[in-house]
């Protein structure tokens, strides 16, 4: 082990006090290939009816923020979903793969973005991520920032996975 301090002194300056950082791990198509290698995908996006939204919320115990579901069908009988979690300071896009039997076969984080300004709540700021994962990748952050506050947002992602299972059961399993 070797550690080289940036500064020799006993006080270090604060950086990034109002900004945040972003990491893009996978684009949508990369995540599709990571979870279902070699498979072909058909867009199966759907808008849930109010009745389906209610069923999904009851089944999963998690509130559904939008009735618009980003889903794909694979030629192997599996399903691929892209969803997002908007925390107090985090914006996380993630993908879930379900096999032909409807069991989770993969969860991948696509984009992890932290912000401590007002941007996260700002629809315009969010809009840049809508579908952006497939278009222009974010500038990769080379720094290591300990995501030590991620306990809550990782729980939100796990709840999101539960919600996707309920969505699959309600809207896709019998199609």
């Amino acid at each position, binding site marked *: 082990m070797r550690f080289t301090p940036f500064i020799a002194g006993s006080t270090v300056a604060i950086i990034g006090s109002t900004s945040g950082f972003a990491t893009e791990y996978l684009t949508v198509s990369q995540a599709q290939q990571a979870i279902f290698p070699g498979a072909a995908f058909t867009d199966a996006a759907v808008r849930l009816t109010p009745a389906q939204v209610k069923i999904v919320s009851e089944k999963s115990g998690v509130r559904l923020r939008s009735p618009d579901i980003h889903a794909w069908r694979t030629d192997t009988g599996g399903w691929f979903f892209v969803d997002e979690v908007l925390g107090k300071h985090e914006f996380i896009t993630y993908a879930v793969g379900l096999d032909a039997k409807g069991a989770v076969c993969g969860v991948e984080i696509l984009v992890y973005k932290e912000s401590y300004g007002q941007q996260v709540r700002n629809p315009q700021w969010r809009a840049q991520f809508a579908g952006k994962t497939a278009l222009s990748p974010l500038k990769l952050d080379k720094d290591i*920032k300990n995501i030590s506050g991620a306990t809550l947002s990782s729980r939100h992602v796990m709840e999101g996975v539960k919600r996707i299972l309920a969505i699959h059961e309600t809207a896709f399993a019998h199609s």
Partner: protein
Amino acid sequence: MKPPSPIPEPVLRRARPLLGTFVEIRASGLPASRLERAVEKAFAAIVRVQALMSFHEPTSDLSRLNRLAVRRAVRVDAATWTVLRQAIIMARASAGCFDPSIAPVLQRHGLLLGQPTVSRADWHAIRLLPGRRVRFLAPLTLDLGGIAKGYAVDRAVSTLRRAGVSCGLVNAGGDLRVFGIQSAPVHVRHPSRPGAFFPLGELHEGALATSAPTYVNALIDPRDDTICARGISITVLAPTALLADVLTKVVAVDPAAAPRLLARHRARAVILDTQGRTVWLDAASFRHVA
């Protein structure tokens, strides 16, 4: 100063929700398809540690111990055995500053689900028996949260290395380990303003863990149930993530006694306050104290 060595291309980066946080793995030094397989195996190693040592999973080794080991000897997996042995070694070496039987304390503070058991026993009541069997001499509830995450990171790193990855990093929500030619720039969060970071330095071939009460106050002295390390963050640099994970708790609970243990494990700690003032605890400060 020598220019930094180039990172071998390509670099694969993946993140998954595991161990109650996000685990990020970066790897390079192999063709892309082999990197994919290596990273997949490393995540599988972490999933396995989670399945064995989760407090909430009823089928985990840990839950079986907590349910049964007070009545009879319970056989555990080799990985669980390794972590328990290390936990007891560190509990003894730190005079109980680190104690795997801390679960009831965390439960009383609402940091862990479940009703706390009423027990005066501590880690001394854990018996490791031949054949990887474990017995509690008194009612105990173990929580390996302060050590298993570091162990999982170490397992992921050795899995990557065995698969031929020459350079990489595993970060489990602040418990991280880096290996290979690439060093990792380390930033630590401001103890009370999570949007602010302090740049600390470059870590090469080593591990670090940070404990801070920024989000939850999980730093509690297992010996007398008091909350410690208010308003500061503690970062430990150590050869392995397991050691770094455990030693952050020891430094939080007893910063005066910690340098001896840090020095023995070739580890260093840095305590950071809200003003950005840093205090280093390491072999040099041990000499100073001694």
